[in-house]
């Protein structure tokens, strides 16, 4: 006989089910309006958290654990996107663009944090939040606008790759700084964590084929268990080494390629969709909506500045690769979207509780640029086209002037 669920679980099912139905509804709204679903999931979380419209009683604990698994899955799938070869090629050909990206987009967040008189670690986290573009939103934007084949697209993708690699070093660095302690202890700990990540990255690139062959199994069920188990174990070990679980999962993703990669993506994507949605909702849930309006103005200013710095990054990098003006505009506008990884970084800050203002600011900031970024990318095409038309008519005029 199947045991009847306890009364507590009835409440849990209803709450959790209602949250999922709510997220599904918002996802449909987002698709209808043509914006990414991440900002709406955040808003949903705000509505059911502290000071929200309805406060969850029993589902919160499950959502919290689900959110942590969501981060693991987000990074695992990000790693699966790339093969080791793609990482090394992007790094070789586009590291100057990656460096410009880092300097231009990390600084505004860092500077604002310092101006606001925050702890230096909170300021560095805000730098990370403004630095990292959203691979998920950008991939969707490229696809929706039919820009995948454009010649500036390899530049955009290469910048995203360098950002992901920087994040693989940045997260352990921040983890080390957040633990605190003597300067010597911290630097030793960070060096160990960073060395572990680099070693694992080299091993993943070098022995990816062999690891993939061992992990691969024809049964989807078995593959799912192997992959999730492996990602959690490696993530856990990475966390213990202060290198952050997310980075461990990212490295597992990098190591997998070939048939294992393809099959892995198919079995993991539904799981990621579920847990990543919980992750975005959970981040919103931790923030009191009452704190949002005061943060909105600062967030808006930061969004404008960092949209401009991303535009500049895209412009410079595309120019470097011989792309003409319209392509430079498109590359820059496409890169402006921030999303899931900014929230991953902000989530660390909220979990550590180092700066109470950081959470609401990050939420408002991501809301603005997760919605504004794709709109800007969409607007870039007509703008670029009018630039082309204008330069052409100017050329024609000049030609006719020369003739007369």
């Amino acid at each position, binding site marked *: 006989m199947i045991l009847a669920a306890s009364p507590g679980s009835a409440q849990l099912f209803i709450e959790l089910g209602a949250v999922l139905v709510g997220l599904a509804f918002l996802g449909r709204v987002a698709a209808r309006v043509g914006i990414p679903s991440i900002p709406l999931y955040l808003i949903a979380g705000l509505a059911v958290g502290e000071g929200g419209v309805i406060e969850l009683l029993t589902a919160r604990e499950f959502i919290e654990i689900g959110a942590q698994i969501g981060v693991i899955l987000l990074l695992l799938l990000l790693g699966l996107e790339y093969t080791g070869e793609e990482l090394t090629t992007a790094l070789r050909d586009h590291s100057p663009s990656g460096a410009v990206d880092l300097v231009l987009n990390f600084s505004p967040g860092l500077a604002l944090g310092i101006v606001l008189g925050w702890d230096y670690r909170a300021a560095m986290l805000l730098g990370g939040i403004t630095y990292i573009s959203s691979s998920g939103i950008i991939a969707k934007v490229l696809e929706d606008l039919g820009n*995948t*084949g*454009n*010649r500036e697209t390899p530049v955009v993708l290469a910048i995203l790759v360098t950002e992901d690699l920087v994040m693989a070093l940045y997260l352990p660095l921040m983890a080390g700084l957040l633990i605190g302690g003597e300067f010597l202890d911290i630097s030793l700990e960070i060096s160990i964590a960073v060395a572990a990540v680099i070693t694992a990255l080299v091993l993943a690139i070098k022995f990816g084929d062999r690891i993939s062959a061992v992990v691969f199994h024809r049964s989807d069920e078995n593959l799912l268990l192997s992959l999730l188990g492996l990602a959690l174990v490696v993530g856990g070990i990475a966390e213990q080494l202060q290198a952050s679980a997310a980075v461990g999962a990212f490295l597992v993703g990098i190591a997998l390629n070939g048939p294992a990669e*393809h099959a892995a993506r198919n079995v993991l994507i539904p799981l990621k969709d579920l847990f990543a949605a919980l992750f975005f909702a959970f981040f919103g849930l931790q923030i009191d909506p009452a704190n949002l309006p005061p943060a909105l103005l600062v967030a808006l200013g930061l969004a404008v500045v960092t949209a401009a710095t991303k535009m500049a990054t895209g412009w410079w990098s595309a120019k470097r690769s011989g792309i*003409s003006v*319209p392509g430079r505009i498109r590359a820059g506008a496409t890169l402006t979207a921030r999303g899931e990884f900014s929230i991953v970084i902000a989530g660390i800050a909220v979990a550590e509780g180092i700066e109470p203002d950081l959470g609401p600011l990050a939420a408002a900031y991501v809301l603005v640029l997760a919605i504004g970024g794709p709109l800007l990318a969409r607007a870039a095409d007509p703008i670029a086209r009018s630039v082309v038309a204008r330069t052409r008519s100017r050329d024609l005029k000049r030609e006719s002037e020369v003739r007369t």
Partner: protein
Amino acid sequence: MTHVHETKLPGVGTLHEFECESGERVGVIAHHGDRREVAIYDRDDPDCVSASATMTNNEARVMANLLGGTTMTEHLDDLRQEIQGLAIDWLPISPESVYAGKTIGETSLRSRTGVSIVALVRGEEPMPAPGPEQTLQADDTAVVVGTDEGINAAAKLFATGGS
């Protein structure tokens, strides 16, 4: 000779593009997985795709046939990948192979490698389902079915015959 330019798109796939004599640029994106995308570039803004069509693997094959290319080898490549653990390949029998001049039965290929010869091609002439008494000649092509490792072993045997 048309110059085809290859670009890796990290996380997406590979882009091949070239310029036609007519001045138009055409690209094909092979997405990770099965999708293919054909893109035609804007004349005024050659960095930008102005029209594109997304195709499944099958549709891409139909397209290639319509364009007059031969897709036989590509087809076989796909077969090798699509059926996990089962591979089909065309193996030439080198004159150096000790198998040249022996019958299929004498080679005991199947017990050595687990690979079966399902057809022979001699010159232009196909010989489907050869029996064990069929003699293998130098420069025949054997169509074989087996595991990847089995086929690699068979290819070595057909090249030198040494074991």
